[in-house]
């Protein structure tokens, strides 16, 4: 009793109108950070499996550039990085209440994101023609079937994340056109940006370990 009273006194009086301080991030932002942690673990499982299989069976993997089109994908990587820049510009625009700017930069991000997915589909089609397929029985390209299996697993799930991101961006754009955001009400844009930058970051890791090493 006296002990708890002492503890209360040490902290000063409790302000009954404020919740206990959390991490300083509002719920939606904190929730997105937490969700991204689980995404990190998901890609960890895919990348970890890739690393183990590649070390166990180096003969299944061709030298960089032998099978995969590195220049094309490098350009595509640049597109995705640019889309992160436009996303930041969108957030900066709404932070100063620039509705037109928000919409324009969101449209730019959507176009860049869609371009990335489009180029990836184009790349897939060409790889399929060369016999670089996920199906081990039909695999005829350089290296071995593990190359195809791991490549499509990692890039496929990343592409899916970009596609979902583009879908969410379109939804955010619709909200923006309806005027739902303002400098004091921009959580949706900020959280969208967190997800988008995460997907971008994952790609930089994937591009390095799948294409360049």
């Amino acid at each position, binding site marked *: *009793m*006296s002990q*708890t*009273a002492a*503890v*209360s006194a040490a*902290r000063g009086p*409790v*302000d*009954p*109108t*404020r*919740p*206990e301080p*959390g*991490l300083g*991030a*509002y*719920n*939606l932002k*904190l*929730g997105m950070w*937490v*969700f991204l*942690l*689980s*995404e990190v*673990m*998901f890609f*960890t*499982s*895919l990348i*970890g*499996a890739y690393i*183990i*299989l590649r070390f*166990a*069976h180096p003969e*299944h993997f061709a030298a960089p550039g032998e099978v995969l089109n590195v220049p094309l994908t490098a350009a595509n990587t640049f597109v995705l990085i640019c889309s992160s820049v436009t996303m930041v510009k969108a957030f900066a625009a709404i932070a100063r209440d620039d509705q037109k700017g928000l919409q324009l930069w969101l449209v730019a991000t959507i176009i860049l994101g869609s371009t990335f997915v489009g180029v990836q589909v184009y790349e897939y089609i060409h790889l399929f023609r060369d016999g670089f397929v*996920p*199906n*081990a*029985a*039909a695999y005829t390209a350089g290296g*071995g*079937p*593990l190359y*195809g*299996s*791991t490549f*499509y*697993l990692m890039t496929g*799930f990343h592409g899916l994340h970009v596609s979902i991101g583009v879908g969410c961006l379109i939804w955010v754009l619709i909200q923006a056109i309806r005027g739902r955001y303002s400098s*004091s*009400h*921009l*959580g*949706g844009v*900020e959280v969208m940006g967190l997800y988008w930058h995460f997907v971008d970051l994952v790609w930089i890791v994937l591009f390095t370990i799948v294409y360049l090493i």
Partner: protein
Amino acid sequence: MSAHATQEAPNDWDFPAFAGDHEHHEPSFIRKYIFSTDHKMIAKQFLAVSLFFLAAGGTLALMMRWQLAFPGQPMPVVDFLPSTMAPGGIILPEFYNAMVTMHGTFMIFFAIMPLLVGVFGNLLIPLQIGAGDMAFPRLNMWSFWLAVPAGLLMLASFAVEGGAAGAGWTAYAPLSADGEYTGVYLGQQLWLASLFILGFSSIAGAVNYITTVINMRAPGLTWLRLPLTVWALFITAILVLLAIPILAGALIMLLTDQTLGTTFFLPETGGEPLLWQHLFWFFGHPEVYILILPAFGIVSEVLANGARKPIFGYTAMVLAIVAIAFLGWIVWGHHMFMSGMNPVLGTTFMFSTMVIAVPSAIKVFNWLGTLWGGNIHFHVPFLHAAAFVSLFIIGGLSGIFMASTPVDIHIHDTYFIVAHLHYVLFGGSLFAIFAGITYWYPKMFGRMMNSLWNRIHFVGTFIFYNLAFFPMHGLGLEGMMRRLYDPTQYGWLAELQPWNVFITYSVFFLVGFQVIFFVNFILSMWTGREAGPNPWNANSLEWSIPSPPPHGNFQTIPVVYRGAYEYSVPGHERDFLLQNEPPDDAAKRRPEPAQRVDPSGQVKDRGGDQ
């Protein structure tokens, strides 16, 4: 939406409404009972679904026990199963495989995990931290409504050609990766898809729990004043958040191996079957603690309440939970001692596994310390919690056996491990769940469960549980393999067959006593005595509001002045002190300084609380 949001919130859905915020209006039937966003209703929904799966998993266990005791004899009553499962009531080997797999899957993923995390996480986190609801009520609704189709897919797999998955709940590759080996094609794929969907449900829940605990604690509810249930559920949510995605990745790879012809786990085209085991157990061992940490929290809560004493070593309890959760990430290899492993690595895993005994022992020590010298009230939740401690000790000690590589070589994949895992999952988790359900039933439904029938259920469960599972240790040491279809086909096991018959009879009685619980659970909703807000004279915030709490829970934001375990405070009239009772009120209720004569004959002023 919220008039209370004093700190600037960039979104209007940031602070769910408190009950006092708006005029009370009755939501429609569908909004209230089916697509509800109220955490208490979602907890009840999870409770209903997971109790169904608990019953389904128990039924499978009964049929398995029949086969083990009376192999090749037609089952009584259950003679209606199709000829692909049990023609004329005689269980086929492939159906036995499916039952083993689905018993484990139902119990772990659809019964124990949702009971602990889905039910108690949803019910207790907002109530015990003084919040109106979860941080993301709609995401919470989705969490439940993703679990339902996952469960339906899992159930449906029994009906497809080839039957349900038969590669065990661990789905070791390549057995699980190629239908050629088990004769199960679509069933295994449904199993994978179902768990993948369930993973979304779990992650949605975890995101919600973590955000809610961090951001929405009532004023004054500092981290070290949180009830241990909240701590346990919070740490569990972190484990769910980080472990389930690993499983998701592994499930995807296994699914594409089966459907798209990839070759992650199939050795003939370059894959690595051991990779599955590593991924699965890297998820699977944290999963083990997902299944027990919330039980630790519930037991701490109930034991302190029953003993009418503060929990012994509160901070140590919190640190032990954190330590166990951390160590749980570096021990997965102890499931794979027999899979072919570098002995140095095996020793490392052996050591890290045994280190977990330290925080576990701290917890047991503190539970016993809590009971020591307590004025114990043997209410039903307390009985289950005390049983938990004793059975968890047995399960924990048999865990040490298996952690030792030399011993594990002998008992690996025998009934010793079946005994061990049931001592921690049934004797541990399920007894804690019974403690939790009987303890918070009045808060959920506003009425008490019938205490007499609950006591009968407890005694029967405790006795027949031990009779059923303890002999399995011996069978395992004698070499009876787990997942074995017919023990009598081996001479040395045929001699032990009376033990299998004995176990089977015990399981029948064990299940029979569970019927009492189910009936009591349902009937008490109407016939139970009205509970009132605080039937157990407990301290945490949920007991300061009506049972069941209204939509939005608290009329005003509660202000917390102390921890949750201020039982039997000296110089205080009652032996409990609600966390949100203002110190002034508590002081007023203090009795007049009593005059006390001590043995020397001197009159002493007992005074206040010096």
